[in-house]
């Protein structure tokens, strides 16, 4: 009992706490609205994972950047870049889809390297630089693929929608792969270095770490994860569209912040998973609530536009809540600090 209590207290101090609570709350809500039997049915679970995997992966990629003290808004349109490059490589050169995916991954790495160069090496403000890059990448996308077109071989998207053993959605494997990657990276020197650089670049430099190099590395790892996300998006939509997913940049940021990530060295990729899960389940819950309402009261005739408004308002409330909890954490920290200091003074006298 004592041990459980202690580990709960420790968990409460970790950055993922708010995100986890929000995620669990909305999960319970969703279960109530949808009913457990329907929620856990293989089909609905599969749809949930396969439709939202790109967002989850992008949020996780973004969390890596936030930890190392930078960010990238163009991350959403980079998904479209991977999508466009993959489809067009296959269409123009008549090569297997898998080669297209490799090219897409390469494109994602190049875009991330460029973004990293502009932000870390040239020291442009991350917000502005990545916004400029967003517009540039959009232009490149349209050059490569002027209008939505193309399709993915059937066996590929069938595989993506597969349920392994009838239980585990195939798309969840992507999530698992990135989580494993994070668990590994976190325990390497690179993992420690991104926290140091995000927390205080000058002190990291004094400890013999090159902040520019570490941020560039973070951008490349992010490029890899975005590449995976782009592949998911391609498999999910089974076609190419140069202008899709732009809002994923902002949504990944809000997922991270709701999950409890601070700007620079505070939080883990788990925060992004919780935050992303929160965003996904809120939409799910609101959708089912509205269907329920429409069924119970057909006279109301609520359009789907209301759904977005309501879910976005709830997301906004979630963001507000993170500010409140962060402030509370800071206050208790400061109080403890002063208390310790005063005690120290008494010893002094």
């Amino acid at each position, binding site marked *: 009992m004592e041990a459980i209590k202690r580990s709960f207290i420790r968990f409460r101090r970790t950055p993922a706490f708010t995100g986890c609570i929000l995620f669990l709350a909305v999960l319970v809500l969703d279960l109530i609205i949808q009913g457990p039997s329907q929620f856990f049915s293989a089909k609905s679970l599969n749809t949930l994972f396969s439709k939202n995997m790109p967002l989850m992966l992008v949020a996780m990629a973004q969390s890596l950047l936030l930890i190392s003290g930078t960010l990238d808004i163009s991350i959403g349109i980079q998904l479209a870049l991977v999508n466009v490059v993959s489809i067009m490589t296959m269409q123009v050169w008549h090569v297997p889809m898998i080669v297209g995916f490799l090219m897409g991954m390469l494109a994602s790495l190049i875009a991330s390297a460029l973004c990293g160069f502009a932000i870390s090496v040239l020291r442009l403000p991350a917000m502005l630089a990545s916004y400029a890059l967003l517009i540039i990448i959009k232009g490149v996308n349209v050059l490569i693929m002027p209008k939505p077109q193309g399709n993915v071989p059937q066996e590929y998207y069938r595989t993506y929608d597969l349920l392994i053993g009838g239980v585990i959605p195939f798309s969840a494997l992507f999530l698992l792969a990135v989580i494993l990657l994070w668990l590994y990276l976190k325990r390497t020197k690179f993992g*420690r270095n991104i926290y140091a650089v995000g927390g205080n670049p000058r002190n*990291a430099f*004094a*400890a013999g770490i090159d902040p520019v190099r570490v941020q560039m590395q973070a951008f490349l790892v992010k490029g890899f994860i975005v590449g995976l996300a782009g592949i998911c998006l391609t498999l999910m939509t089974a076609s190419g569209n140069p202008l899709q997913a732009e809002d994923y940049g902002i949504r990944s940021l809000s997922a991270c912040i709701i999950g409890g990530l601070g700007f620079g*060295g505070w939080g883990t990729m788990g925060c992004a998973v919780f935050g992303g899960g929160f965003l996904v389940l809120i939409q799910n819950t609101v959708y089912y609530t509205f269907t329920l309402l429409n069924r119970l009261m057909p006279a109301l005739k609520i359009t789907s536009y209301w759904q977005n408004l309501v879910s976005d308002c709830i997301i906004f409330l979630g963001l507000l809540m993170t500010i409140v909890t962060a402030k509370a954490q800071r206050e208790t*920290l400061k109080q403890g*600090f002063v208390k310790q*200091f005063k005690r120290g003074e008494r010893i*002094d006298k």
Partner: protein
Amino acid sequence: MFEMRGIEKRFDAVVALKGASLHVEPGEMRALLGSNGSGKSTMVKVLAGLVKPNAGEILIDGKPVLIRSGDDSRRLGIATAFQDLSLVPTMTVRDNIMLGNEPRGVLGMVDDRKSQKEVLSLLERFHIDCDPDAFVQTLMPSAQSMLEVAKAVRLKPRLLLLDEVTASLHRDEIDVLFSVLRELKAEGTAIIYVTHRMNEIFEICDTATVMRSGETVAEVSTSETTLDTIVYHMTSQQPDAKVPCGQEEFDPGDRELVLDVQNLAMFPKVKDISMRAYKGEIVGICGLEGQGQPEVIHALLGVTQPDGGQIFFQGKQTHYKFPADAVNNDIGFISGERNVEAMFPMLTVEENIFAGKAAKGPLFAYIGDKAVHAFAQKAVDTYNIKAGGLRQPASSLSGGNQQKLVVARWIAMQPAMLLLDDPTKGVDIHSRREIQKILKQCAEAGMTVILNSSESEELLEIADRVYVFYEGRVSGILSGAAKTPERLAAAMMGMTREACGPKEAE
């Protein structure tokens, strides 16, 4: 073994180091001393790879080396514990100590079990009572300082640099630290120790290098020298520790008490400050860097709220939440950080002068062009400020004239009390004289002036009384005949501490 020769460093126009030198042998503990702006911290940063010198060479074992980054410095066997700490507050104690030098385990992962063991033994060696998994930002400052040293010692350096690490430590912690340092010395580690606590030098250091205005002025052996000699080298004044400390030495006559600060305490720099200022008086605040001077000014102004003590202004206790409250209560503030805190470089000279007045009064009141011009013109005429054309942008003025402009702004407001935080920093000698003249005029007209300055000569010249700060407490109050450079030097070095401040625990 380690030698620095002819090191020069310029930050734009400011010369921090001009031909400074330093050498230290294995097993030697050398104190690096100097007062404000002597360049001792810059020397440490050069060795740590944070500052690149413009000229000069660094020799290790007689061979010249290049130190361009923290990584280079570490590879040459140099470890540094910084004054402002190089810990990352959002990381755990363990990760901080191991940072940049983690033990490798399987698959290139960090071997956490190994580092845990190492960290625990290190914490034990330094008697630091904390959880290795605690975040550094939750620790108290003294534990953080000890960690900073522990982190440097873990690297098993050939040269250990300690930059004012004892500033926030308590006596028992210092004893632990010193015993570790003695062990290291016996093992043959060279140590450079920067401090402003003179008694520590004689307690633990073998030799001392004294710096003044970027030059090395003396190298002495601590067993063959006295405190007075060292202070003489640092300040070029023979110290005189007979400093009067109480208020009773000063007779205010029938002048009105304007400011009364009682036992002000502010975490973590200010510990116990009491001071008074009377109408028409220039009160100087002085001390080595980082003894709490700017913090007190900020508390008076309401930028930060004190943790203890009271401030009475014109007989009423103040509870300012924002500087705007202070300004509305007739307090003016002039900062040394012109560009950051006081100037609007794109606005014209007259708009800059008017800015202080604009801060008062209703928000949407109409402010006419002519009113601004007349107000500025009057201020310029009254105090003879030669500040270029009134309609030119303020950024076109020189540094000295910009500072005069800021002074003019507040003088024109005629506040009852004017606070100045190092107003003559980086200001040419001519403008400095004019600013001093203006301040004197104001005081004669009945304004109370509180002047914090890093230039001690300036204070001795124009202040009626000088409060000397040392480690967050008043170490001396100089007035009248006691206002001599010798006594000031003694008070700044804390040599009067036994006589003035509360006694330290045995």
